[in-house]
């Protein structure tokens, strides 16, 4: 694998101007995991360099090395001809390297102007804070990038996109020459992404080298001049973006042509649908959405971020109750005003954000598994029945193949795949009629992914209606009977049976 690295690097050296930063032969181990293995990367002024790869491939670790947050075991980083064997955060900032993390590290309680100026003022070891200076400095940057930011607004009242622009301005105040953006488009709507890209063009014109960390193919191709793909801690390939297409990027990212093959269990199409949604509307999110899911059917829902797909799922589950429309379970209409109503009606929801919404990290695995079904584990004295609880836990340990030393261990100690199985077990323990999964395999390794999809097929065979919301086209093709495409808060396409292919899904999403 690493053999492909060398020519690619040479290519960069040969064609472009001198790199502002080169990372060479960086390796890093965490415990038993080789997080980075002999990774090299060149950043060239005025270029957008995309760092792509699936979750856990090591791209975030690489960024931490460059920004000085972590120290490499071996390798060196050269900035402007000065070789650093290890960076620290201060020297990285002084060298003009700025990282914009996903959470932006902004202070919600301070104004935009203060946020823009604070870091550089701290770095300059200032004692006094001059309000007027700060404003002027911030205004200058905002004007230069032609942004429409209210300098006096508190950051916590800004939209995600404006927060990101604030973070970019902050980086520029510190004279950044390398700006690394970690998944910059994750929480942005389509038009906000476009605006971000125009700002990125202005940054390029200024001679800034940009790194986009992303796992979204379309963006990667649209914005970057150069592309490096990582997998399992190694650089798989690196070169001009023009040399890649969507398919080849996907191949390099997943590392195999052994994509999940399509395998869908049969189900009785004539039976009353398990879930039937009619005319569901939530102003500002989606409107007049109707669909149904049969018993034993696996329905895929996809769409761009901000299309309303997550809101739709959260509406059915009662997180954001819909303003109008009806939901019926097994043909019987149910009112879903809150999550308890949804759970009582037999709906389960595996959220996208597993760590905060799905799991009690500090609590034992056992508690997590029965977190949604305490009431079903009571004896006639209305006390919890330990024996029955234990039975449930051992049952799901076996059935879902949860690998853990003991159910009393905190969930925090589990890997992504096992943690997701615990969330799954929590809902299966409630014996739901409908199970909605948002990003079921995000942050899960390849092996676990296949197993989790298998588990879903088994549940469907047992008559459960399964709804999968996902970005991962391959996953949808692998196990969904039908796929709905959502855009602008409405269902725009319905792909049935043979129509469910990667190409058709991509096509309908693009429109």
């Amino acid at each position, binding site marked *: 694998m690493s053999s492909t690295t060398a020519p690619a690097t040479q290519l960069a050296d040969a064609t472009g101007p001198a790199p502002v930063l080169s990372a060479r032969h960086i390796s890093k181990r965490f415990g038993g995991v080789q997080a980075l293995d002999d990774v090299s990367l060149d950043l060239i002024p005025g270029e957008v360099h995309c760092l792509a790869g699936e979750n856990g491939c090591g791209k975030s670790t690489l960024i931490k090395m460059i920004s000085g947050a972590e120290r490499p075991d071996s390798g060196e980083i050269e900035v402007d001809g000065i070789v650093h064997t290890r960076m620290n955060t201060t020297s990285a*900032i002084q060298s003009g390297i700025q990282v914009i993390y996903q959470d932006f590290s902004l*202070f919600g*309680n301070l104004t935009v102007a*203060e946020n823009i100026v604070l870091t550089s003022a701290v770095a300059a070891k*200032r*004692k006094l*804070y001059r309000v007027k200076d700060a404003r002027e400095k911030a205004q200058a940057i905002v004007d230069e990038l032609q942004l429409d930011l209210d300098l006096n607004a508190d950051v916590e009242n800004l939209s995600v996109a404006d927060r990101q622009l604030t973070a970019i301005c902050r980086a520029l105040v510190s004279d950044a020459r390398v700006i690394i953006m970690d998944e910059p488009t994750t929480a942005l709507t*389509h038009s906000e992404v476009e605006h971000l890209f125009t700002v990125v063009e202005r940054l390029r014109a200024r001679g800034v080298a940009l790194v986009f960390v992303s796992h979204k193919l379309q963006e990667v191709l649209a914005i970057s001049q150069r592309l490096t793909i990582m997998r399992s801690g190694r650089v798989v390939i690196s070169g001009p973006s023009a040399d890649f297409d969507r398919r080849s990027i996907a191949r390099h990212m997943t590392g195999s042509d052994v994509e999940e093959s399509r395998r869908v269990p049969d189900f009785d199409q004539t039976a009353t649908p398990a879930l039937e949604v009619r005319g569901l509307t939530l102003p*500002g999110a989606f409107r007049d959405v109707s669909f149904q899911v049969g018993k034993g059917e696996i329905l895929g829902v996809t769409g761009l971020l*901000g299309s309303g797909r997550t809101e739709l799922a959260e509406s059915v589950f009662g997180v954001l109750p819909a303003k109008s429309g009806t939901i019926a379970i097994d043909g019987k209409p149910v009112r879903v005003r809150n999550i308890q109503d949804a759970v009582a009606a037999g709906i389960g929801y595996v959220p996208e954000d597993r760590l905060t919404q799905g799991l009690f990290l500090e609590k034992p695995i056992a508690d997590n598994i029965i977190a949604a079904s305490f009431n079903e584990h009571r004896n006639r004295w209305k006390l919890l029945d330990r024996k029955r609880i234990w039975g449930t836990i051992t049952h799901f340990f076996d059935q879902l193949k949860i690998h853990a030393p003991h159910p009393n261990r905190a969930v925090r100690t589990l890997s992504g795949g096992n943690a997701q199985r615990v969330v799954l077990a929590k809902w299966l323990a409630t014996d739901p009629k409908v199970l909605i999964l948002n990003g079921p395999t995000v942050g899960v390794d390849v092996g676990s992914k296949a197993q989790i999809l298998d588990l879903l097929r088994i549940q469907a065979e047992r008559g459960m209606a399964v709804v999968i919301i996902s970005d991962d086209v391959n996953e949808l093709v692998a196990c969904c009977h039908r796929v709905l495409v959502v855009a602008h808060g409405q269902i725009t396409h319905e792909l049935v049976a043979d129509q469910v292919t990667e190409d058709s899904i991509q096509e309908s999403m693009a429109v």
Partner: protein
Amino acid sequence: MQLLRKFRGANNEGSLALILLVVVLGMSLLNPVFFSVNTAFSILRAATVPMILALAVLLVIISGGIDVSFPVVAIGSAYTAVTICLKTGFDPGLPAIFGMAIVIGGLLGLVNGFVIAKFRLPTLIVTLGTQGIFFGAMLVYVGTRYYPTLPDSMAALSAVNVVELTTSAGRAYLHVLVLLSIAIALIIWAVLKYTMFGRSLYAIGGDAEGARRAGIRVVRTQLWIYVLVGMVAAIGGVAYVVMSRSANPQDLVGGELDIIAAVVLGGASIFGGRGSVLGTVLGVLLIQVINNSLLLVGVPSAWLRAAVGLLLILGVGAQAVSARRSAQRIHTVDTGEAVRLELEKVS
């Protein structure tokens, strides 16, 4: 609308000022005696010590912590200084007494700051512990005696008034220490607004991890916060002793939650990152004005605590409800302009 928002202020200072104004006007209409220089002066006098202590707590609360040991620190350092003077029979003069108390207060604050910053423990729990330690240590090692007379220099200060007026209602005095509290308010205001230390407090209170990433030395700043709080509290303690013309080691202690209530009433967020000197000053004044009003109207002062509690619920409750409303409005969905317009028509 913009103007209204500006008037309300970042921490609802405007609303607070408005309430204060309404109470003052209402009281003046009800009872003309209220609207007099005498009343104003006595309210200012009564507000002096709570104001200084509240400003000290404000610093901690902005930084995201909470301190319940400050009354003990205040009375402890003042009482210790007085005891030293009286036991040795030597009166070193006011500046030295203030200095001595400030040093003691700073040291006690250092203990708080060290334990909190070094071991990253919850501030409420730590200061709860040190409160007991400081209180016990003062009574065991310094003394439990009540001193009815102060060292001469302090006793002299007790009687100093900056303004003495004869009004129709009798003579009105403005105590000199009122100026001290105003000076402290101004200094803390300037520190919060115009120094990096002050801005760091807000940053740490907003997001301690983010502050660390931004290069702020969080541990060192936290240490300084508690030292500063100890020093300001010590000044408050000396002021208290001077104004009550006696030194009792059991005074002030137990009033910590009342002071914290005043700070929160003044718009500071208990989660940190928000709070202003102006708001705190208004909060303290409001409580004192209400106290005074209750007396004048003939309501027993016992109602004061209930009134403060009620105000607190109204103030914080209104904030909580409006925060919930604005959270509901935010949708990050890109429904497209056309769809949005249509939706508006529907709803």
